[in-house]
């Protein structure tokens, strides 16, 4: 399984944000996007997820599920957490567990939700409305989504924002397990996530300088 981008060009408004970017990430590898603010890290991640159409070039997954779009094989965790303030923490996650599709019918939704909450240290907060969570806890709830449905590609956009040191370590563990299990990780980050053997893609050539 390979995630391949070829000569990708993405234009936002009149500005070319991504100019001629190519990369290939194999299963079990991770790609960390670095670069200054405005260098196109988010744009690249959103292009892989299929929200943005590239002007030219393409992203594709070789050896993935041919019946699904690339976006449907990705977990996308962006700046927003996708949580509802009036639903409980467990209910928020249970919704995504069912909505994102159960690829493992042997494990009931409840157990998957409980497992993901446990892993991200939210088990004690399961029955509290998500609106009462702190920013860091909310972010962890958003991240817990990546554990409840199995998908080969994880797209994480600044996943460590508002996380404390312990949670950052936890996230690094979760991510390393995913990569070790043959998954693909593409993350935009300012902090090194502590993943061994990660590839780096530095964005922000001419486009960032012009901005």
């Amino acid at each position, binding site marked *: 399984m390979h995630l391949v981008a070829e000569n990708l060009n993405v234009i936002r408004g009149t500005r070319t944000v991504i100019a001629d970017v190519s990369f290939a990430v194999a299963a079990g590898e991770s790609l960390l996007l670095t670069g200054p603010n405005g260098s196109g890290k988010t744009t690249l991640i959103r292009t892989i*997820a*299929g*929200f*943005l*159409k590239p002007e030219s070039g393409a992203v594709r997954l070789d050896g993935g599920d041919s019946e*699904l779009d690339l*976006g*449907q094989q*990705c*977990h*996308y965790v*962006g*700046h*927003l*957490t*996708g*949580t*509802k303030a*009036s*639903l409980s923490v467990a*209910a928020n996650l249970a*919704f*995504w567990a*069912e*909505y*994102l*599709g*159960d690829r493992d019918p042997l494990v009931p939704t409840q157990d998957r939700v409980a497992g993901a909450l446990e892993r991200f240290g939210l088990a004690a907060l399961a029955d509290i409305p998500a609106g009462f969570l702190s920013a860091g806890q909310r972010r962890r709830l*958003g991240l817990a*989504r990546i554990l409840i449905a199995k998908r080969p590609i994880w797209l994480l956009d600044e996943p460590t924002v508002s996380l404390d040191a312990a949670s950052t370590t936890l996230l690094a563990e979760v991510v390393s397990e995913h990569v070790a299990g043959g998954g693909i990780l593409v993350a935009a980050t300012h902090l090194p996530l502590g993943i061994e053997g990660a590839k780096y893609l530095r964005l922000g050539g001419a486009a960032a300088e012009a901005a």
Partner: protein
Amino acid sequence: MTGFWTLVRRELALALREGSAVGTALGFYLLVVALMPLGLGPDLKLLARIAPGVLWIALLLAALLSLPRMFEADHEDGSLEVMATAPLPLELAAAAKALAHWISTGIPLAVLAPVLGILLNLDLAAYPALVATMLAGTPAISFLGAAGAALTLSARRGGLLLALLVLPLYVPTLIFGISAMSSAALGLDGFEASFLILCAISLASVVLGPLAAAAALRLQMQ
């Protein structure tokens, strides 16, 4: 299809918990209709004659009030982007949200209408037709409204723009809804024909509305 019903259930749970939207729509409907006799005077014959039109127009405006929230919350908290990566196509997600809007707003408004009919001295014979036409006509309001709500998603203060976009699309529903009710109230033959056309308009909206809404949502995510 489990995703479809999961989404409908979540939308209904949220509508119930954050009940303000439904409450506002029902309260608005009640007030507008209650103001009519005060403004027009106690002429019972006049009120009975204009009752179908007043009930329908006030219903459209009340439903319009709750439309902008259909996708707004999911857009603001990022849920919409996650939904775009789900196995359920965005068209069906839009349909699920429109269906939930109909159940949580359209049906309560249609059920409240007979109560308001009393305020307007509506002929008792017209009550079954009133509820039937409103239940048949309100899906068009929710499903066409979904397309409008999706289009105006990132427009600041999109509420007014939404009204400008969507109200003209409600004209056929309004015409055939009122004509079905008037025929029933006056004991004329035309009820069945108008009612069937009203159903046809709703069915077409149920199919076309989500397609347009999904296309608009994809644009908004760009």
